[in-house]
Structures are given as C-alpha cells and as structure tokens.
C-alpha cells in the first residue's frame, strides 16, 4: 500500500510539475514573461479526475465525506466540476492529507472562516508549492517589468510566522526573483514604517525597481503613517505593488478601489502596477488581477479552475454570483476541490470577479451585468 501510494504520488507530482514548467517556460522564453501560450495544452479534466481518485484512495476524511455523498469512484463523475468540494472550514475538523501529517514538509495555518477557528493545510513536499507559486507570481506580476526587483514585504518574515503561507510564498518569490536585498517590515506585529521609508528612498536613489507586497490592512496602515508625516513616496520606475487579503478581524475596512487610488497617488504608480492577488492557505495556486479597471477580473494559471455554487452547492452558470469553489490540481497531497466562503462570479473565460464578504450583504440581484460587477467589486 505504501509503495503503491509513493509510486502514484510521485507520478502525479511529476506530471503536475511538468505542466507547471511547460507553462512557465514556453518556447521562446527569454527571461521575460510572455502572456499568451498558444501552444500550451493539457487535459485538466483527465488529470483532475485522476487526482480525485488518488485522494479518494488515500485521504481518509475526504473519502468518507465523498462516500456520504454517494461517491466512491471517479468513474461516477462526468468532469472535474463534479468533484465534491470539501468546505474550507473542514481543515479545522480533520487532517485532510493523503499522507501522515507528521511527515508533512510544509504546514500552514488557515486563518479560519466565519464558522470558527483555523486549521492546518499539510503539504507533503515543497516542490509543487514552490513551482506553482513562482509560476503564478511571474504570470501575475512580472509580465512586463524589469527583473530582478527588490522585494519589500509589509509582512512578518518566516521566522516570526513560520506557518503563514503568505510569508512563505513571498520568501520564495523574493529569493527566486529578487535582487538579494529583500526586507520584511512587520516586526513583532508592528509596522516598521520609518525603515520602509528609508529603504524605498535608498532604492529610488539607486534606481532599483521594487515590489511592495502586503495585505490590504498593512497598506492602509502604511498610508496612514505616510499621511501623518505628510510624505509622498514615489517608487522607482518599474516598481509595483502586490496587495492581498482583506480585512479579516479588523475594525477598519477601506474599499479596494479607494485603497488602490490612494496607493497610486502616494507611490506614483500606474494602476496596472498595483496588482491584487487572491489566494487561500488551503490552495497551492493563486489568482492575480488581469484587468486593471475598477472590475479587476482575476486569472490563475491553468492548473487552477473555479466555479460558483448556490447555497445548496448547485453550480451557477457563468457570470452568476455564488460561493466560489476552486479546483487546484497542485493540491495533490490534500484536497484539490475546495468550497470557500468567498463570494464571486466566474466568467465564461474562466476569470474571476471577487465580491468581498462585506459587500455581499449589499448586493442587489444575483445576476450581475458589467456595470454592477464593476460596482460590486471589492
């Protein structure tokens, strides 16, 4: 059984890794990202169902959940959208892994949902995660910019937050794509604003483009600090911002368009260099903005696909708002299909329009046209 598992897991990992690498380095790749991949193809459905079968065999809690829904084999499913999504909140209920959690190479704490406290996402090895996050980040942020960038993280570093998937991701990104001088500006829970201002000015003096990454709440705090000191902090040419996360557990909430406008003003950036990232600890792959008007459609690498469901779990047609389900094939060692508490619509081209949890309560009508999508975007 163990040998059986190992062989199957390794084969699947290799297959996923190959897909990531082929997509990340298309023919003609010369160190700069090319947006279109006309020749890139793989059968998401086939691989998705095989990963599901693997998880049915080796992920006990997930298999029991599927069994309770009457599903014991991938042969019962027509396509990847039939894979039963595990609720994100289930990560606090059980160890959702295809292997013994004690053997996990990576353990990330989920921040929890409105259903309660967080859980742990166990990953068997770091290779898939590293490859997936790097490919997604390069696609989302480095398509048209200079490299290497200097990375400035408005986040705690990995020593302080060893189980933060976001800190891990930015650590890997900075090491893969950075100039070797990256820094972290949340220390002991405090924002190190003075040090950040100093470092940005130094980078500007030396004409080194930077990438500032942080949560929405950290950016709001930094903007508050800069406003208090009446400082404008233009970033060097080619710089960019990666904003992620919302305002979970925070008392101050700023609408995203308002935040992006303020960031563009203070840091003198064009709006397409302020890029929203959408990820979850329960996922291995991330979405990034691929349109930069108010709507901010998001796209992901092709091994992550999503759809929306109504409250009964029934799939919604494209453009209809619902709870988002993500199927991330790089989640090979946990659960590929995750039902989130995030509200959004998946469009015909597979891109995502995210609606903040706070905004959901204000929505009118469940079918959003372009105008209301723009207004509803958080």
């Amino acid at each position: 059984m163990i040998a059986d598992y190992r062989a199957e897991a390794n084969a699947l990992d290799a297959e996923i890794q190959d897909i990531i690498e082929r997509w990340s380095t298309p023919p003609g790749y010369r160190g700069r990202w090319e947006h279109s991949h006309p020749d890139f193809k793989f059968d998401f459905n086939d691989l998705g169902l095989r990963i599901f079968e693997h998880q049915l065999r080796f992920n006990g809690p997930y298999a029991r959940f599927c069994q309770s829904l009457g599903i014991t084999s991938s042969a019962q499913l027509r396509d990847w959208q039939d894979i039963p999504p595990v609720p994100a909140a289930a990560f606090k209920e059980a160890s959702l892994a295809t292997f013994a959690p004690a053997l996990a190479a990576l353990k990330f704490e989920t921040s929890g949902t409105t259903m309660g406290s967080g859980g742990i996402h166990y990953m068997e090895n770091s290779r898939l995660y590293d490859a997936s996050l790097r490919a997604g980040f390069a696609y989302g942020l480095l398509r048209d910019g200079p490299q290497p960038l200097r990375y400035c993280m408005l986040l705690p570093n990995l020593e302080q937050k060893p189980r933060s998937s976001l800190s891990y991701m930015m650590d890997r990104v900075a090491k893969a794509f950075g100039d070797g001088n990256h820094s972290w500006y949340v220390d002991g829970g405090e924002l190190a604003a003075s040090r950040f201002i100093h470092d940005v000015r130094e980078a500007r003096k030396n004409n080194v483009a930077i990438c500032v990454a942080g949560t929405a709440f950290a950016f709001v705090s930094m903007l508050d600090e800069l406003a208090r000191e009446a400082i404008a902090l233009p970033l060097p040419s080619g710089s960019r911002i990666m904003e992620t996360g919302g305002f979970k557990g925070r008392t101050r909430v700023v609408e995203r368009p308002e935040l992006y406008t303020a960031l563009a003003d203070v840091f003198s950036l064009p709006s397409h260099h302020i890029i929203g990232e959408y990820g979850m600890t329960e996922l291995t792959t991330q979405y990034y903005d691929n349109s930069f008007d108010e709507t901010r459609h998001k796209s992901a690498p092709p091994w992550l696909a999503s759809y929306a469901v109504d409250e009964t779990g029934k799939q919604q047609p494209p453009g209809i708002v619902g709870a988002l389900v993500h199927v991330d094939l790089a989640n090979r060692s946990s659960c590929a299909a995750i039902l989130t508490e995030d509200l959004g619509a998946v469009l015909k081209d597979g891109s995502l329009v995210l609606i903040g949890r706070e905004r959901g309560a204000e929505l009118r009508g469940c079918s959003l046209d372009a105008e209301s999508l723009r207004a509803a975007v958080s």
Partner: protein
Amino acid sequence: MTALSKVRAAEIAGAISDAAERWRDADFPVRVRATGRITERTGYSIPVVEYALDRLFFAIDRASLEAVIAGELGDVEMLDGFCSRAGRTAAWARPIGNVCVISSRTTIGVALPAVLFALCAKCDVLVKDREDSLIASFLETLREELPKFEGAARAETWSSQDENAPALRSFDTVVAFGQSETLTAIRNALSPEARFIGFGSRASAGYVSRESLCGVDAAAEVARGAARDIVLYETEGCLSLHVLFVEDGAAVSAAAFSRTLQDEIARANVEFPRGEPALGRLAQAAQARALGAFQRASGESALFEPPPFLPRLAHAIPVGGPGDALEYLRRHGVALEGFAITDNRPDVIGMAVSAGAVRITRFGELQNPPLAGEHGGRPRIAEFVRWTDKTF
C-alpha cells in the same frame, strides 16, 4: 374618549374585513405599490413578498376577527357596553386608551394584526411603520372603507434617536417586535402603569417522526413542506424552520431524507427565488451546509452543533427520539415560537410543549399562522381592553 368609542365593534370588524378584501387582490394598485416598496426594503424577491401579503390579508376576515373577540372577551358586544356574563358580573371591555405598535425591521406586516385588534378594541393607535409604509397604506384603505377611522390610527416612521420621536411614556400600552436590547430599551421608557407586550427573537423547529418516513413518497411530502418553511423569508422569521429533527430507524433514513430535503429546497428556490439577504450570506450558508455534511460523514453528532441561522438552511439532525430533540433545544438555548410535526404522536407533542413552542402545526404551514390563533403565546385583543364591572 377615543376616536372610535362611539362606533360599534362589529362595524369596525366589518370595515377591516372589507379593506383586507381589497388588499387580497394582487392587482389592487395600493398593494402593487406597497409590494415594490417592501421588496426594496427587505430585499426579498417579489414572489416571497406576494406570498406574505396573500397570507396576511386572506387571513383577515370578519368571521376570524369576531371569533377571536368572542373567544377572548366572551362576546363582540362586550366592546360596545355592559353585557351580562354567565356566572360572572356584568362588564364592559373598554379601550385601554392610547396604543403604540412598533414594527420590527425584517418581517412583513407583523404589526398589522396587533393594530387591527387594538382598533377593534376602539383604542387610538400609533404605529411605528417601516420604510415601506405598508401599515400606513392599509390604514388609508381602512379610512376609505370607514371614515370614522380618521383620527383613530396613524402610522409614522421615526428612529429612537429622533428628537420628534413620540414619548413612549404617554402610551397606555406598547406592543413591540424586535431584539432583546430594543425591547429592554422600550420597556424602560414606559410609564409604570403602561402595559408592555414584547415579541422578541424566536426560532421554530420541526420533528419528522419515523412513522412519517415509511416510504419515499411520504418522505418527499414532508420534505416539500419543510423546504417551504425553510426558504420563505430567507429563514429570518420567527416562524421559519431553523432546526429540523429526523427520527432514526425509519424505512427512509435520516441521510436519505436530508438528500430529499435538499432537492425540495432547490424546487422551493424556484417558486420563491432568493432575495438579497440570502445572496449576501449565500457563501456562508453553502459553507455551513457542506461542513455539516462533512461532520456527519466524520461520525460527529449534529446534536452538538448549534443551529446555523443562515438563509435557506436547516440541518436535518438525526435523533433517537423526542428526548434528544428536547435536550438539543435546551443545550443551545433555542427560544421557540412554532413547531412543525408530522403526526399526532403524544410524546412528540409533549416534547414540543415542554420546549416552549407556542404553535404546533404541520410542515408547510409554519409560516401561515391563522389570525384566530394566538401570536407569541399571547391573546390578540384582551390586552387592549380595561374591564369595567357593574354590580349595581
């Protein structure tokens, strides 16, 4: 002396019945306009609002009004002057005086029966209306039916912070619907002599007996009714089905019934489309539903999970018998209003009564309370009168 003191109670009831009859017509222009405003205020879909208005106005007729008055006071004429009473002193049920009725934020027309019975008791009534002006619109129709209502009832909107908010201290009776903090604040603002009738937040439950799950068709019938009780008013009303117990050991298992219920909810969603409250909390509801399924698959008992109180969601909780259901309701402190049952089993009815239910009915009827019944376990009109006995 109140505005209606010289009008006979039967005439008042007749006028109310005639006004309600006009509102039963879905094309009655005043109702059409009110429907739009209610949809705007509550966020419920139009079919849900139409259903609510039908239930409200079809229930109001002269026979029901007079039956309640006679049932609680002895005779409708008790409201018009001294009447003799078998074995008791002669008495006159006189209006208590000024009544204020404060509507709640979510429900549709919940204040109306209280207003109508206060008017039948010939009280002067002020209603705190919602932004949809439903009560104001109905009072306008009432005045058209019987101009003597002019001066007897008015509906206004205000917030407790308004400088011009009426002084609650000036009322003889205040009826209020709302959350505990709101009710406490209102009660504290009354004069010591005033009567306070508070209707706080409550939930409803249902119990599916093993006898009712004798076959697939019977189970589907129960599930159909339960689905309607769940989806109407986005599960926000005190008569919405929030907690559903399913007895083990039936021909149709609790798990199978749960799946049938999901199918029936999907059907009910077509008849009564989701409104805004459900959309805003859709993702939470989907998560809670899936998490419940995950926990049950992991062998965890749903008995330890509190009710989700999310739109269009009620977990089917398997129980061994009524004792488990009672324990669950007590453990989670569920204050009950209604209780839906599948048959007249004495142990189930006894459990519902012990749990504090004030209305027991069949599935599918929870959200359809009869005017001739009590609301919140309280009388309809008795609290709007002050008795004068005559022994001379």
